[in-house]
């Protein structure tokens, strides 16, 4: 079939049509991929080992939690809401896990299950309060942030106690060994790709379309039969569960501390916006959001290589984020 053939039915899109659609999607959200590529090349020039499989996988492994959080933030943002509680939720995960496991390997799996349930429950609470009780999600999740932070430290008495077991940590640290050429394929990278693929499938299913429709125009979505509240609550639940997954990975990376999740909610939202997701909902792709997270992490690596670590790092990061988002906004206007 020729590429000019725009199928009238719209549903039975042929291969050429799809190619065109992918191309146009890439052009509209493509800025982030170009930026990511530029950063990767730049980092490789500064430090050639970065392009080798080992260090590159280490970079991906480091990025995995933020990428997963960005996917979660994407669902909430695209439906027109905010989730400011994910950072504190990550902290809760690590602190609760340490307190309950206390270095006992046999408790690992039940605790992981519990963490996922906590994530889902917190997400549901956020969603329920924001939709059914009509509290703006900014405030709901801000309140949730206070509640979670307070509750977890109250319970642990100010300083995190306990220890994580070795097999709990292995999820964040280890991977499949003995693979030729790359030696080790970290679990976190596998998880990242699985979650990425699942998110893409989810956004292509009915749920994804309804989510975007809801974020774009709530009234229109409601009138055309979308159960707006249910879709939004589900988005919050996804965000909560993904925060739990990210928390489990981060628990493996570093030690148990009360600072693990600090600021992650802003990082995740920044990653999404870098990827072209519009705050307020209705626009953006989940792949671009995840690419935004990879870009942010690449940016941190680049800053380190430039020797701008420490004091002025934040300043440079702020300038670059504003610049990149401004550039993306400029591109978007040009495309219209």
């Amino acid at each position, binding site marked *: 079939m020729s590429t000019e053939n725009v199928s009238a039915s719209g549903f039975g899109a042929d291969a050429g049509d799809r190619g065109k659609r992918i191309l146009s999607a890439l052009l509209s959200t493509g800025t982030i991929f170009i930026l990511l590529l530029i950063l990767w090349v730049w980092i490789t020039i500064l430090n050639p080992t970065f392009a080798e499989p080992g260090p590159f996988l280490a970079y991906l492994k480091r990025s995995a939690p933020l990428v997963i959080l960005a996917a979660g933030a994407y669902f909430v943002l695209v439906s027109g809401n905010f989730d*400011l509680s994910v950072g504190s939720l990550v902290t809760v995960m690590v602190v609760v896990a340490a307190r309950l496991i206390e270095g006992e390997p046999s408790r690992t799996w039940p605790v992981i299950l519990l963490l996922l349930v906590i994530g889902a429950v917190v997400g549901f609470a956020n969603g329920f*309060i924001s939709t059914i*009780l*009509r*509290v*703006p999600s*900014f*405030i*709901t999740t*801000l*309140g*949730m*942030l*206070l*509640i979670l*932070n*307070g*509750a977890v*430290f*109250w319970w642990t008495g*100010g300083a995190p106690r306990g220890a994580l077991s070795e097999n709990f940590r292995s999820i964040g640290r280890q991977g499949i060994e003995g693979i030729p050429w790359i030696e080790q394929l970290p679990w976190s990278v596998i998880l990242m790709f699985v979650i990425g693929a699942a998110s893409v499938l989810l956004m292509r299913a009915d749920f994804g379309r309804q989510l975007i429709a809801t974020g774009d125009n709530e009234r229109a979505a409601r009138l055309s039969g979308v159960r707006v509240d249910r879709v939004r609550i589900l988005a919050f639940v996804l965000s909560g569960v993904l925060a739990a997954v990210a928390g489990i990975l981060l628990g493996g990376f570093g030690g148990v501390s009360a600072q693990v999740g600090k600021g992650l909610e*802003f990082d995740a*939202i*920044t990653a999404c*916006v870098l990827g072209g997701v*519009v*705050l307020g909902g209705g626009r953006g792709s989940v792949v671009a959001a995840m690419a935004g997270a990879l870009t942010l992490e690449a940016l941190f690596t680049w800053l380190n290589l430039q020797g701008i670590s*420490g*004091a*002025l*790092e*934040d*300043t*440079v*990061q*702020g*300038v670059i*984020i*504003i610049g990149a*988002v*401004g550039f993306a*906004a*400029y591109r978007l*206007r040009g495309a219209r």
Partner: protein
Amino acid sequence: MTVIDPSEQSPGTRAATRKERVAGWRVGVLASPAAPVYGALLGIIIIAWIVVTIDGGEFLTTGNIVNMLQRSVALGIVSLGQTVVILLGSLDLSVAALISLSSLVTAQQMDGQSGNVIPAIVIVLLLGAGVGLANGLIITKLRVNAFIATLGMALILGGIIENGWSGPQGGVTDGFSQDLGYTRFGVIPMSFILFAVVAAIVWFVLRSTRFGYRVYAVGGSEDVSKLSGLRTHRTIIGAHILCSLTAVITGIFLASRLKAGTPTVGADGGYDLESIAAVVLGGTALTGGRGGVIGTIGGVFILAVLDNVFNQLEFNSFVRDVVRGIVIIAAVAIYARRQEKKA
């Protein structure tokens, strides 16, 4: 001079109009969006009073009231500016970092010399205007979403603070610290007068100036305002300058209170998110266009009373956060229900 009664009405009709006016006043007050805020405030004060009294403490003592007023000042001033940008449909997450930076700069510029007080304040105000201008320009000209723009600004200021200061910066003059931080007239602290003056200015600007009307218009719908010929960019930039100015005033106040500038004073107080919470507690819609200063002041008092009760009951600081989170969510949920019923 003789007083001439301007109205030639009979006493009966005059009484009627007066009654009408009173009724209208009553309806106006109760229908204002700030009414439920003060209802909530009254409720919380009564509950606090009962709880504290049962606990064996005293709530309505002079010391305690002074304490509550003092506590409301820092959050109050910055929340006034936050109100303006939220009314506009924007928000400012950079205020906490700006408060820290301005407290440091205040202390540094004063350098212990009483002659430097005025120049220091002028410099810090200019700093605030500059940061606000930058925020506004980034939002309007670069078209960066306000959330990201001010978050980026917070990072930028944070880096500057970390680069320039590793600890507290002394140098706030004794006289200035005493005057602004600790003087009080009866039950009213000097700093509270500063809060009242800033509140009056912001209230006047919003209620009676062209700029104020424009803020509401842009918050209602930026597109419509633009199509009706408003220079929306100027309004947005102006509002952000105003917001940053209130942040630096808060910074100056905190410097006088602590007698030093500290790199973490803004972050420790959580002034970025807390001021947004106060504004929303005050009944201002986060989407912009509805609300005002009066409500925000009520919201600030609610948070101050809560804080005070936690102190009196010697609550663990973590429990405090939990209760505060619950109160914020619950209050906003109640407003939302009210709004829904009306609509």
